[in-house]
């Protein structure tokens, strides 16, 4: 039984590691800031999953509540950051008509017209 739980923890930990990779890919591959925000959240939950799964590997003592509490705090803080980012992206789009950073514009040099 305990071995089975340890296998499960390793499985979800690896899943978290893969999610971090997927998230970083999305963050690099897209210039659109909302796509980057989605990727940022995938990276975040991947890290939480990795962290939570490592907390479960000492299964003889039950699921450790301290990592769980830290992760809940992390989820709320990630949401706060996402809300702030959404507001900033919307404002940027209002001002510039685009949802990407000026230096990401094809052929557009930084400091060009806004």
């Amino acid at each position, binding site marked *: 039984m305990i071995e089975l739980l340890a296998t499960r923890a390793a499985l979800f930990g690896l899943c978290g590691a893969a999610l971090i990779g997927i998230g970083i890919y999305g963050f690099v591959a897209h210039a659109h800031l909302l796509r980057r925000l989605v990727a940022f959240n995938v990276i975040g939950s991947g890290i939480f999953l990795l962290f939570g799964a490592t907390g479960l590997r000492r299964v003889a003592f039950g699921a450790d509540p301290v990592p769980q509490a830290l992760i809940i705090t992390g989820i709320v803080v990630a949401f706060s950051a996402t809300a702030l980012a*959404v507001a900033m992206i919307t404002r940027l789009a209002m001002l510039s008509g685009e949802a990407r950073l000026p230096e990401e514009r094809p052929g557009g040099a930084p400091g060009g017209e806004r």
Partner: protein
Amino acid sequence: MMAVVFDVLLCALILVVALAAVSGRALFPAVVFFIVYGLLVAIAWVRLDAVDVALAEAAIGAGLTGILLVGATARLRRMEVPEAETGTSAARIATGIGCAMFAAMIGLGLLSLEPRGTGLAPVVAENLAGAGVANPVTAVLLNFRAYDTLLESIVLLVALVGVWSLAEDRHWGGHPGLRQHARTDGVLAAFGRILPPVGLMIGVYIVWTGSKQPGGAFQGGTVLAAVWLLVVMAGLVEAPRSDGRLLRIGLVAGPAIFLAVGFAGALGGTFLGLPAAHAGNLILLIETALALSIVLTLGLLVAGPPQRKAGTEDGA
């Protein structure tokens, strides 16, 4: 055996949906996949015996973040912001290979880690009797590591101040900008009348039960915030003006009472230390005030910067 098969399938599904959310071409499907992804991750947390985290992930990670992203997508579409992507497929493949190698490195690192020591679970279990609550996660959040939760509630408040600060001067103090055009006989208006009683009950129950079972101020507060948003989006009530005094008192009530209890603890020796005899009641007081502030803050964070009616539609 069945359990292992289920876990493997769940992990595979999570990865596929995450890939769809990250690599698809269009923005809106990516957001929808992200919401599905959040719900699947919540199931993963249940499998890991972390039901409190599962509740938070489903409510905040999938639900609220989801509405926020759907709302932003709709706004950008109304402004006709281009979605066209740059970058060659060769560059994407190279990026993909690099990221896969990075993830493999993290995975190898994880597998090579030997679990050492006992973790903090036994220490928490030992001290749970004097914590005032029976749910060990709530005990960590509101007693043993109350610092985290206090600062977290302040982070929420600061984020709201940041969001409001992005409003133009002429909109300052107006109603937060969820302007809805729900038809009075439409689905949204009907949901706005049918769901709130159920949602209110579930939300209050989750806050209340957090002391004994999985749940708590953040998870329950999110459900209540969702109910509030639903009623506002259905056009049944208007979001309060962001310069209303009552609203602002409600926003700071949670952190303020939390801080006050913390300072009272400081007089007794430890900042944020709760005397075992009163810990249960103090945590209930903090959780209730915190839940109120969380409902208002989360709802307003989703609603976005304030706007005034005289202004142009979203500045477009």
